[in-house]
């Protein structure tokens, strides 16, 4: 108990850790909380003008035609559609009267001229439609068609939904901050592991020559880092929810479960960096900070389009990025409730954590070193 108590105290009093784990995320979330609603206040949702090439392939695709006509947002059609020829559509695009063109040949082609939220929504809609097209064909045989169509409309509406109100948009950014906080938990595991490994620090060597078993020491280290991380995340959630007034939805239990698993991933990442790099602690902290910020950026922390871009064009990165897994789990919970996507993200996080812990354990289990 004494060992736990003093290890806990030593960790809790670390100012660097306190800054990166609590103060920095609070500053960042306060900044987001103050600036984001204003930044998007001027933007309201408008129906997106697009052109669809009225060719034979399009006319034959009844399913697509009906979906396109039916998709709406806030009881307004999502798209204002002009059915025309490719030439005329090109002119409309050139004169910026439309955001993009959809042409159906053997497959769908989307033409846009600029980058913006309207283009992103159009792209999102089409990507989702195409991804589920084959499933739709199969499912149509034994399922109510209208339900399928509804699910597609719900699925593609997430970027549009972000325009619905400022708070919902802000929530997405705050999901990324929560993800970042979970990963920042790695600072604590990194710090503690540094003090357990004889080849990493003098304190590590001193611990290693004691009769206190390494397994017990590692278990204590894990419990301490995990519990401190969890408390910090609860403080962060409290701050974001009650002070900044951001709504995380109604699935509190599932949010906590996501955070619990997210911390495990962050903890494992910190442990892996801690044991695999034999450098001074501040160097490792710099590495972990950079890695975490980069992963958070890819998950949409700095701009939400990044998440969409990575999800669409580099899905492998999304699947191995723990920050994205946490963000996406919270995101799916917020927009779609408890769904398969949420559990898939949690499972991916667990796999990530197990992978990092396994690699770390292979290095940690050594009790003697070739050099220290």
């Amino acid at each position, binding site marked *: *108990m*004494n*060992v736990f108590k*003093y*290890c806990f*105290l*030593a*960790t*809790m*009093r*670390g100012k660097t850790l306190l800054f990166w784990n609590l103060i920095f995320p609070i500053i960042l979330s306060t900044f987001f909380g103050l600036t984001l609603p204003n930044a998007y206040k001027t933007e309201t949702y408008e129906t997106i003008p697009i052109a669809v090439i009225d060719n034979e392939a399009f006319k034959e695709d009844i399913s697509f035609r009906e979906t396109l006509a039916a998709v709406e947002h806030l009881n307004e059609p999502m798209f204002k559609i002009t059915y025309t020829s490719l030439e005329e559509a090109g002119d409309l695009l050139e004169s910026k009267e439309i955001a993009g063109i959809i042409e159906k040949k053997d497959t769908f082609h989307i033409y846009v001229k600029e980058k913006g939220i309207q283009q992103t929504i159009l792209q999102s809609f089409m990507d989702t439609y195409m991804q589920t097209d084959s499933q739709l064909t199969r499912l149509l045989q034994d399922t109510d068609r209208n339900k399928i169509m509804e699910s597609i409309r719900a699925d593609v509406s997430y970027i549009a939904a972000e325009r619905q109100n400022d708070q919902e948009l802000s929530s997405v950014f705050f999901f990324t901050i929560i993800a970042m906080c979970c990963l920042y938990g790695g600072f604590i595991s990194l710090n503690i592991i540094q*003090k357990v490994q*004889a080849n990493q*620090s*003098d*304190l590590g*060597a*001193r*611990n*290693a*020559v*004691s*009769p*206190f*078993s390494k397994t017990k020491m590692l278990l204590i280290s894990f419990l301490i880092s995990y519990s401190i991380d969890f408390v910090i995340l609860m403080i962060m959630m409290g701050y974001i929810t009650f002070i900044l007034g951001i709504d995380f939805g109604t699935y509190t239990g599932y949010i906590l479960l996501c955070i619990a698993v997210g911390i495990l991933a962050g903890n494992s990442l910190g442990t892996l960096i801690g044991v695999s790099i034999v450098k001074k602690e501040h160097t490792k902290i710099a590495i972990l900070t950079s890695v975490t910020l980069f992963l958070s950026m890819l998950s949409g922390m700095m701009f939400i389009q990044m998440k969409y871009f990575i999800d669409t064009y580099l899905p492998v990165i999304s699947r191995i990025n723990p920050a994205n897994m946490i963000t996406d789990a919270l995101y799916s919970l917020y927009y779609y409730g408890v769904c398969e996507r949420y559990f898939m993200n949690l499972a991916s996080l667990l796999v990530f954590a197990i992978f990092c812990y396994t690699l770390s354990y292979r290095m940690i289990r050594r*009790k*003697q*070193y*070739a*050099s*220290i």
Partner: protein
Amino acid sequence: MIIQIDNLVKRYKSLIALDHFHLEVEEGEILGLLGPNGSGKTTAINCMLSLLKYDKGSIRIFGRDMTAESYDIKRNIGIVMQNVAVFDTLSVEENIAYFCSLYIKDRWLCKQYVEEAIRFVELQEYRKFRPSKLSGGLRRRLNIACGIAHKPKLVILDEPTVAVDPQSRNKILEGIRKLNQQGATIIYTTHYMEEVEQICTRIVILDKGKQIAEGTAEQLKAMITLKEKIDIEQIALDERQLQAIRELANVFDVVYNQSHLQVKFTKGKQNLMNLLDYLKQEDVPFGKVYSQLPTLNDVFLEITGKGLRD
């Protein structure tokens, strides 16, 4: 026998850090491991503690083979590292309590031992201080307290007085003697020969990972040719006079450089008298005169051809 090391070989790639190193330590000894930086002292300690893998040889402590899992052996060893290894975020008292609790499960006994350790290193008035608020000497004393609080039978101190002021150094040496009087066997590594002469009952001299000599300070000094060294300042001599000095009884080496004369003698009586008589006879004026008995540095110099601090 507390420690028995046979034929220990430790290589760092092509560098041989310990070259068939032997060491035996009897109960109650204060053994000084003396050698220049890089001679293998710390490597020997780390191998002894099973922190480092070694290539060849055997290490037995308290009559049993020492391994990384030898927790019963480790329970009776106290280690004071070369660098101060404490938590900066814990107070003096908390640091000692943490390290003591790694060895002692009983909370009340641990508390009692912590109090004793604080008194032992005389840090009572600093018990609530964080290490960063302590001077270098006080931090060293805290480092020692953390290593010995659990009352080990064997205490290994790896250069505990590096960068410490003379007052703190004396306190530390005094403490080591006290520990020994309380029954602990001590291994003390340093490159300060004065400290070794002051406290060690036996000395092992290491160079390039090898034990090059061992014995008490007197025994080691008796091993070398040099028995007396006389230095004379501000003296002017010509070659004839220098040659005459070289031919004096028991002289085996004369160095004359920039008005400074150093004459080395083998064992013999009245060496100083003979030298001064000759200078008087030649009517040579001179400044200060020093006569010194050989030091451990002279022992090291004569055996290896270089000084301990080279």
